[in-house]
């Protein structure tokens, strides 16, 4: 009942925003849009990105489901979790856990360390820069992916929105008790969906990415939980080697 009442209200709101919907009046009335990119969906990403960049300290946790495609197209699913403590502009601790390994990434603004507790091996390299730069450089130089990397890129020039080829509002739904706006995008070889908390403080609560580069369309789904009042200590963002831990080299990423 609530949803039935919400829809007309939202439609009315959409129609009453002439600046955003100059080209998509037909879409609002149920006709095919002239442009597949709904500007309001793009604006929602902008608003979320701007809000994300205002968060100075937070703890964010994620549960991810991913897929591997085998030679014949059969898919296998796996899961992993990560917890990240973040203090802008340049502090991060990430703990990544999968069924086979646990790894930690610690960035204190001067050095970044990757630690594997099972083998007690760690690698430290000097780095200064923002978290967005860290995410990009770790991937480019070392082929190391930071969990929920987009969180650090949305709202920055590293997350351009003009490459999106299709954007639409897919309605509202609840994610973990939070009312969210659901958006769907197409961009190059990926389709992606995001659920953003409704209201004035938009946060991503769920992200689903479909890889269309493979016919089997492997998909990842990340549930995202927020703690905006985390209790950090002086050691949260400092890496101190455990007893018996050994420093090893991290090799730069090679191109094939």
């Amino acid at each position: 009942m609530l949803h039935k009442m919400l829809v007309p209200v939202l439609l009315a709101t959409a129609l009453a925003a002439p600046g955003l919907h100059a080209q998509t009046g037909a879409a609002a009335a149920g006709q095919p849009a002239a442009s597949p990119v709904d500007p309001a969906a793009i604006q929602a990403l902008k608003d979320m990105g701007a809000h994300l960049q205002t968060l100075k300290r937070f703890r964010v946790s994620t549960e991810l489901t991913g897929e591997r495609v085998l030679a014949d197209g059969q898919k296998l699913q796996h899961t992993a979790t990560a917890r990240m403590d973040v203090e802008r502009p340049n502090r991060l601790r990430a703990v990544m856990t999968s069924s086979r390994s646990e790894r930690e990434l610690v960035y204190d603004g001067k050095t970044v360390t990757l630690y594997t507790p099972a083998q007690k091996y760690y690698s430290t390299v000097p780095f200064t820069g923002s978290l967005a730069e860290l995410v990009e450089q770790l991937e480019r130089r070392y082929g190391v992916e930071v969990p929920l990397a987009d969180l650090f890129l949305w709202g920055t020039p590293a997350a351009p929105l003009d490459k999106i080829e299709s954007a639409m509002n897919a309605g509202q739904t609840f994610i973990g008790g939070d009312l969210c706006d659901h958006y769907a995008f197409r961009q190059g070889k990926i389709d992606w969906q995001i659920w953003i908390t409704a209201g004035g403080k938009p946060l991503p609560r769920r992200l689903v990415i479909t890889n269309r580069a493979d016919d089997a369309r492997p998909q990842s789904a990340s549930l995202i939980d927020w703690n905006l009042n985390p209790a950090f200590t002086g050691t949260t963002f400092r890496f101190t080697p455990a007893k018996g831990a050994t420093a090893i080299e991290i090799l730069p990423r090679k191109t094939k």
Partner: protein
Amino acid sequence: MRNPFTRLFAVSLTVLALAGFVAVPAADAAGGARAGNRGGGDHARAGGGGKNVQVNNSRADVRTNNVRSTSVNNVNVNRNVNVDVDVDRRGCCNNGWDNDYHPIATAAAVTATVAVTSAVVGSIVNAPPPGCVPVNYGGMIYQQCGGVWYQPQGPQFVVVNPPY
């Protein structure tokens, strides 16, 4: 691999591995827990459920290692220049943070390496040979022994395709 016994051991295990990991003797696994568990201590278990047990993938079908592509976890990294770059790269060697399944043996690699070298891709040893150097590549730990790369698998080490 200078030790002839080790060599024999590795080869025999390889045969088992190629046959589908059906019958790695339990005694070997137990021995590996002592020999290969270097400084693991309390952290020796893989992440997972937090219980003090390790995953055991010795009975996983070899086909599970023949991965042609994977899902992707982000929509922005490496895609602001060319939207296709990252999607395609992941199918090969470098995985997302969630995906620590190294492609051990593609079908081509298996046929190419059998009976040519002593350290056959997919073979399992309790400890890497002397002189191996631990390195981090792509966020994962390897023991690099010249052109042969081992990856920790539970308490043991498996020969994998070189990651680059």
